[in-house]
């Protein structure tokens, strides 16, 4: 998802006998549904994994501003412009909440930012795909935020208090995102032949990248077990992906669009939709930096950061002068 390939530092889940007394007490608290707070004792690997996961999640929100921001100046009505701007602004807010949650673990936002900018930390693969027509704005809200909600709703119960609280705030705002997206693409699907064509094009292009958001298949996610034991991951990738497909297929039918995958079929026996797996080699290529927009996205973030340095430093210099003048006056 927004943290798709967090490399766990642990060596699998320790059995209760192998744990130190502190680790055992820690695991018992998590098993009892207690929240871990920043000043509580925690295993170093828990801290490290969380920093990576929350950091990746935050980076995804920030980089995620770019594909949608791409259409702010071309939004077709004043109302759509305002909605889209408010939505992309919310993504900045989500990034901010998440960075703050990560900061409680003893890492600074600037450090995390620099790790994003020089490629040491990742962000979700989905934001390395382009937004090419207006309908993509609808599709991103509907599919990408829809997928994000499926991932984030359970994370409101995650074991780390600041992360869980950030997720509560994010989820409250996220349903606006998915709804505005569905509303926008619905207008397109019900519109002129050209608009309908845009809607279909968006769905076809973004469907498989949206499925990839949940991360690789469970059989290829060896690190999930520890994260799940620590309740920093609440469901497996495949569970969430299936939930997304089951939820979205009827919506595609409601819109009157063609299914983007000929393998989609209701499976009576399992009570779920069957679907074709995305091309996982493409997914790993995107993660490695070879997606259609990786270079542009990172260049845009680097430019904003570099161009903004004098502003950050200038305002800080002013604050220091003011503080010094205040001390001198006392």
């Amino acid at each position, binding site marked *: 998802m927004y943290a798709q390939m967090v490399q766990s530092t642990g060596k699998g889940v320790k059995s209760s006998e192998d744990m130190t007394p502190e680790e055992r007490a820690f695991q018992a608290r998590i098993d009892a549904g207690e929240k871990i707070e920043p*000043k509580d004792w925690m295993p170093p690997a828990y801290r490290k994994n969380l920093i990576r996961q929350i950091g990746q999640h935050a980076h995804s929100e920030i980089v995620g501003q770019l594909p949608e921001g791409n259409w702010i100046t071309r939004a077709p009505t004043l109302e759509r412009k305002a909605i889209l701007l408010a939505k992309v602004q919310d993504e900045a807010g989500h990034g*901010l909440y998440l960075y*703050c949650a990560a900061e409680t673990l003893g890492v600074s936002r600037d450090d995390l930012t620099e790790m994003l900018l020089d490629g040491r930390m990742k962000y979700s693969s989905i934001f390395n795909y382009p937004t090419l027509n207006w309908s993509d704005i609808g599709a991103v809200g509907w599919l990408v935020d829809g997928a994000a909600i499926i991932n984030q709703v359970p994370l409101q119960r995650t074991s780390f208090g600041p992360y869980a609280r950030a997720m509560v705030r994010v989820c409250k705002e996220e349903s606006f995102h998915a709804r505005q997206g569905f509303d926008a693409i619905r207008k397109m699907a019900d519109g002129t032949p050209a608009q309908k064509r845009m809607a279909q094009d968006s769905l076809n292009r973004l469907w498989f990248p949206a499925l990839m958001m949940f991360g690789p298949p469970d059989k290829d996610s060896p690190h999930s077990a520890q994260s799940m034991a620590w309740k920093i991951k609440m469901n497996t990738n495949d569970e969430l992906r299936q939930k997304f497909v089951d939820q979205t297929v009827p919506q595609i039918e409601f819109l009157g669009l063609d299914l983007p995958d000929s393998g989609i079929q209701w499976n009576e026996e399992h009570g779920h939709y069957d679907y074709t797996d995305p091309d996982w080699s493409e997914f790993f290529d995107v993660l490695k930096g070879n997606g259609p927009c990786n270079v542009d996205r990172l260049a845009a973030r680097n430019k904003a950061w570099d161009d903004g340095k004098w502003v950050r*430093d200038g305002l*800080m210099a*002013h*604050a220091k002068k003011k503080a010094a003048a205040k001390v001198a006056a006392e």
Partner: protein
Amino acid sequence: MKNEWPLWEVFIRGQHGMSHRHVGSLHAPDAEMAIKNGRDVYTRRNEGLSIWVVESNHIAASSPSDKGPLYEPSESKVYRHPTFFDIPDEVGAM
């Protein structure tokens, strides 16, 4: 050179005469900007009327291991809670 804006904790009073509640944190060069940033970041949906900010490193916090000594004694003082007392219905509202 590291020149990061300090971290601030933001407390907001909701619309209905409640006390200020911690809503999250943000970065700002000074207190005035922290209040403005608090307004822009944390009241985008009419969440508040009054904002407090305090630099995070000025918050003194109890340490988790004190949890027992700090809070457990009050658990035994059940008489502090109004439901401890049985007031007959005919006495009316109290």
